[in-house]
């Protein structure tokens, strides 16, 4: 029983990360029909930046977090003002399926390359926000950082869900994703919603990177894999439902831990991805996706 609970805790911790990235992807996709493939890179920037600022540059922990988050916010704002503004507000460049993936894919490459140039190839872990040994009840152990990740994932998922469902601003944001022209006709500034939610989700991802990095550690190349798992979690939420994306992420994390614990440590990831692949191709309707944009 204790083995099951320990595996469950480990699975929920990694699932919380997948889930929150899925939620970040879903909420932004809902607003502008673009997948943020740089979400994992924002987490990496937050984690590696905080670790570097506190351990190498000697800043106090709080200041390190603040500077790292400010940097991530600035990068997100600049990307929106320069690239997304030109592409979506001025009508320049590629549209259709290309815009769904490749603008943020370019940003991901850029951030990964910049992080490598700035921080090198070392593994970084930010100091723990809630330091101390793992919490233990009999044989059940859970890391403090893991508990924070799970709690924050659930709270963030619920907040994003509630924002979109119950607030006027959230409904206006959703309207932008349904029809940019329609939303503009009724006076909704779609560019403003796109920019705000892009920055907020980038900051959220960075914060999760900071909270989680004491457990796994981050390198400059950690981002794409996290983004990819986030895409999968968001995919199981039709790319539009942040609450469901968190649930999907948690389920994926738990499945990964259980497969590793009870089936095969070596092949747990292989089995997990194979199962997800089979679900998608055998029952694509579970994703709730429509046809691709032309």
């Amino acid at each position, binding site marked *: 029983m204790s083995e099951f609970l320990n595996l469950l805790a480990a699975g929920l911790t990694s699932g919380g990360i997948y889930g929150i990235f899925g939620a970040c992807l879903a909420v932004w996709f809902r607003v502008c029909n673009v997948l943020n493939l740089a979400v994992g890179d924002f987490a990496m920037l937050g984690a590696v930046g905080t670790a570097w600022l506190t351990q190498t540059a000697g800043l106090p922990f709080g200041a390190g977090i603040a500077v790292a988050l400010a940097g991530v916010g600035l990068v997100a704002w600049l990307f929106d003002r320069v690239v997304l503004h030109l592409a979506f507000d001025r009508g320049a460049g590629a549209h259709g*399926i*290309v815009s769904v993936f490749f603008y943020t894919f370019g940003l991901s*490459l850029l951030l990964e390359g910049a992080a490598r140039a700035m921080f090198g190839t070392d593994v970084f872990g930010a100091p723990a926000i809630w330091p101390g040994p793992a919490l233990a009840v009999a044989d059940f152990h859970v890391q403090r950082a893991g508990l924070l990740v799970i709690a924050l994932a659930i709270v963030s998922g619920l907040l994003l869900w509630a924002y979109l469902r119950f607030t006027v601003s959230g409904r206006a944001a959703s309207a932008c994703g349904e029809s940019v022209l329609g939303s503009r006709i009724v006076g909704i500034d779609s560019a403003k919603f796109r920019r705000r939610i892009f920055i907020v989700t980038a900051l959220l991802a960075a914060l999760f990177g900071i909270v989680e990095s004491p457990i796994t550690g981050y390198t400059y190349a950690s981002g794409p894999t996290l983004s*990819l798992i986030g895409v*999968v979690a968001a*995919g199981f939420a039709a790319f539009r439902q942040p609450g469901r994306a968190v649930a999907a992420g948690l389920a994926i994390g738990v499945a990964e831990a259980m497969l590793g614990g009870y089936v095969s440590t070596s092949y747990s*990831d292989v089995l997990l991805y*194979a199962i997800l692949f089979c679900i998608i191709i055998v029952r694509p309707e579970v994703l709730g996706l429509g046809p*691709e944009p032309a």
Partner: protein
Amino acid sequence: MNRPGVSRPGVSRPGVSRPGAKRDPVPLGAAAGITVAGGLVLAAMNGSYLGLTVTTGVAYAVVTVGMVLQLGYSRQLAFSQSVFMGVGAYGTGVLETRYGFGSLESLLAVIALAAAASLLIGAVITRAPGLALALATLLLPLFIYQLATDSGWLGSFSGINGVLPFWSGPDYEATLVRSGIVSVLLLGLAAGVVLRVMRSGIGLQLMAMAEDERLGESIGVSLRQRRLEVFVLGSVLAAVGGAVLASTQGLVTPDVLSESAEITLLLMVFVAGRKSVAGAISGAVVIEYLTTSTSFISTNLGIIEGIVLLLILLIEPDGVAGAVDRLLGHRTDQWAASLRAWSAARLQARAHSTPESAERELAAPGHGTRDVEARGGGDGGGS
């Protein structure tokens, strides 16, 4: 009632050649041109390091040519090319080192294997609507890579060593040149097949589907059949590219299956031109050269790739090839306008003169040019 994709009697169907119709010379010409030009270039490089880089680029080019049809022309959101490249590379390695196949036998076996695998996977995967296909194919590299690195039979992280070259020579340099010539022959064939499809009625159907699937369906295109065909062709070409890569390098590593391999392939296609076969070939060779030949680029690869990709997407979505096409098209339009003006002037001169005076006029030096300039038909004269 007619089934979709089946023509009624008396109604011509795209993709079916009519009696007396002239065969399109471009695919065959392109295939021959690529083979001859590529072979000459590799022979001139005489087995040098540059020759190895170009041959590796040729291996990637076989894959990117298929991606032009899949991603660029048909807009099929499939990201499984690195997986099928791995099927080709690992298939070649396993068949040659474990079962004693020759290089030609293993190439044919790998093509058959990739066709069968892509047909099986594609039959299910291409049913997935829109982004689900992208999602499913994004997952493929993740678990196939893990499978390859965890499997001792596939050599784990070290991979498989001792893959045979396509055509052995007396020494390393000669082997590289000969294998390179076989590689460009395969690239020429791949380009010829893709151009043949793109320039046929099937290509028009794919274009219609890419623009709007409902439009394609309304004109009788069997969407599922066409999607599957494109998926299989793209996957088989990726496997051939993998086989070329394995034979060129003499080994197979799991890197060929990794996410970064897929990213590199996507960059080769998008930067050079996702709708152009020539762009995809030159993009693969040039990017392979740049990433392996200069330390500055290989160190700062991510930054450069990111900036270039964003600039291309914003400024010229059809890539460098699109920009070149536009430039050449503009120049060609100008030349055509000049020619039209010159012809019109000549006809007019003929109509207003006797045969003798017309002959004298035509024989006069600079005759055409003066007329064209006088009527504003020179450079920038417009049509």
